[in-house]
């Protein structure tokens, strides 16, 4: 099965991310990449949730809560609204990450819409992110050809960038996006927004990944609609990493054991 493409890491962040994929691959797994909205369910409660995820995560994805999250479904949007209501947004998220970083070696990537970066100022944002120990950025509303400065500034601060491809992406777009990624490539499994779906299936994912691997110099992860061990297992057969988000938000909201769910999905990430 797939093994992460050998790469020349361009930044310390990229090196750490690639090492995490490589470790998982050596163990016959896809990397398990859980997502959690910063400051959810509360600023005080977030570290415990993050700790539970970090117990099994290969990479943790932390979302900056945002008022107008175009790419997210209702689950993550509600979590964002709750976190914003509790006072967490951009700078606070980076402080929460810095605190996690003090306790954990696991790589951490930040998912953020582009407006918070512009509002803080791209250079200042990168400085704060580097200081917090952020390894990578996932930018769901920034196609790489929109802003060439952000990726450069990230690299300057040792941070890797991840852009997204979708089932609608043409081969030209896949090539452009894949070549721009320095952390990992994020393949969106379906057209649509984030969130658990009934009957999630691989569908167009294998063909999309085959195309992506022709161009990507980095590992390829799949997300959107992965919500349990079974789906994670399916995805792990073709991807280097599996991103799971809304399922954990739902678990927190419903008072379920996040650590147990993380363990179950992480186990599902075994290949074969």
């Amino acid at each position: 099965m797939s093994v992460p493409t050998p790469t020349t890491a361009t930044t310390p962040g990229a090196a750490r991310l690639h090492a995490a994929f490589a470790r998982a691959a050596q163990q016959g797994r896809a990397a398990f990449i859980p997502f959690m909205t910063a400051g959810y369910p509360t600023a005080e409660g977030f570290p415990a949730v993050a700790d539970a995820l970090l117990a099994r995560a290969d990479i943790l994805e932390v979302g900056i809560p945002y008022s107008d999250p175009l790419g997210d479904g209702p689950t993550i949007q509600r979590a964002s609204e709750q976190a914003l209501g509790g006072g967490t947004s951009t700078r606070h998220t980076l402080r929460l990450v810095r605190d996690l970083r003090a306790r954990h070696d696991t790589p951490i990537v930040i998912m953020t819409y582009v407006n918070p970066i512009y509002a803080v100022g791209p250079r200042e944002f990168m400085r704060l992110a580097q200081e917090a120990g952020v390894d990578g950025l996932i930018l769901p509303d920034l196609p790489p050809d929109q802003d060439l400065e952000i990726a450069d500034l990230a690299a300057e601060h040792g941070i890797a960038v991840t852009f997204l491809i979708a089932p609608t992406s043409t081969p030209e777009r896949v090539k452009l996006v894949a070549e721009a990624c320095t952390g990992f490539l994020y393949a969106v499994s379906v057209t649509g927004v984030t969130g658990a779906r009934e009957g999630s299936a691989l569908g167009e994912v294998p063909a999309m990944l085959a195309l992506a691997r022709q161009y990507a110099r980095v590992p390829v992860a799949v997300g959107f609609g992965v919500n349990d061990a079974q789906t994670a297992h399916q995805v792990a057969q073709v991807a280097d990493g599996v991103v799971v988000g809304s399922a954990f938000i739902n678990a927190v909201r419903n008072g379920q054991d996040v650590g147990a769910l993380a363990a179950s999905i992480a186990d599902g990430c075994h290949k074969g």
Partner: protein
Amino acid sequence: MSLTLPTYPQPDGRGRFGRFGGRYVPETLIPALDELERAYAAAKVDPEYLNELDRLLRDFVGRPSGLYLAERLTAHAGGAKIYLKREDQNYTGAHKINNCLAQALLARRMGKQRVVAETGAGQHGVASATAAALLGLDCVVYMGAEDIRRQELNVFRMKLLGAEVRAVTSGTSTLKDATNEAIRDWVTNVRDTFYILGSVVGPHPYPAMVRDFQSVIGEEVKVQHQALEGRPVPDAIVACVGGGSNAIGIFAPFAYLPEGERPRLIGTEAAGEGVDSGRHAASVAGGRVGVLHGAMMYLLNDDEGQIVPPHSISAGLDYPGIGPEHCLYSETGVAEYVPVTDAQAMDALQLCTRLEGIIPALETAHALHHAVELARTMRPDQTVVVNLSGRGDKDVAEVMRLLSLPAGQSSTPGTLHARPEVQA
């Protein structure tokens, strides 16, 4: 009406108006935007498309709309002649229908059977539902729950026209949230759905395309002003700006004239309870550059990049951003943008109604307020054209509610005004 769509020097090849605009959207949509850009470029020079659009604008919408000399408003102001460009005469009651028919025709050409739209005041929703009914397309309109309350009649109109109206309860339950939901729907159903965007906002090519479709307003003004005044270019043009489509429609045909030949172009932003109050929708006066709904523009957002909920008496202006082309006009001085408060708009609405027998939309009333103020400062041989972007039918219930509130419960004047003084 000439059977061509205009061509302007902006945006650049990357969909940017200077530093504004662009395509800040999920990658899923990029191929759809490319497809739209190609389809629009082809339609724009296709006589079949242009003939059909021309026929519908003439026979269905009722274009050209009048350019009407408002004699009593002019006398009241006591300065320049005030002309009203009567987009309120359009079928469905506002300029929105120009753009909706053009986009719906494009959707049909592209083989998309389903359209989605967002709406604030309901005018764009009604226009989208109308165009969809006419062309036999399925139509879903996203509307904030708060706006549904404010615009009950338009909600019913849309349903009567066969559209499905989906209430949006996320965020502030207004236009920006309805736009988020419409874009999400489009991301999800992008392969068979066309997004009829209602203003000169959103990712490229929407700001340019919507401008082109609305430019018919300004192009007609040239011809009509020539006939009435013996010259094609008025001295000043005033239009209200939320996202900014009616304003661009009347500005763009004049905006690229050389300096010195260009009229003063003035956009009125909704200042709500005042720009300093924090309760307004004035993106130029009270915002800073940011990204929303796929474009970089002046935007109400805080220092951490969170969108600040806008406020306006008018649901149609209640939007935290302003189209990227307006941002460029503002930055380069091609147009000016001035804030007008809720209370000033309410006064202007009553003034226009009493003096001219025309009940304007609350949006339009913002422009009317400034036009009267401006005309006062100008000579009688000069002209001010106000884009009367829509009629007030949809707002009558809300206006009635606001005018019946005891003073002090609202920022809006609580009394019906006495008949205004008209100078002889």
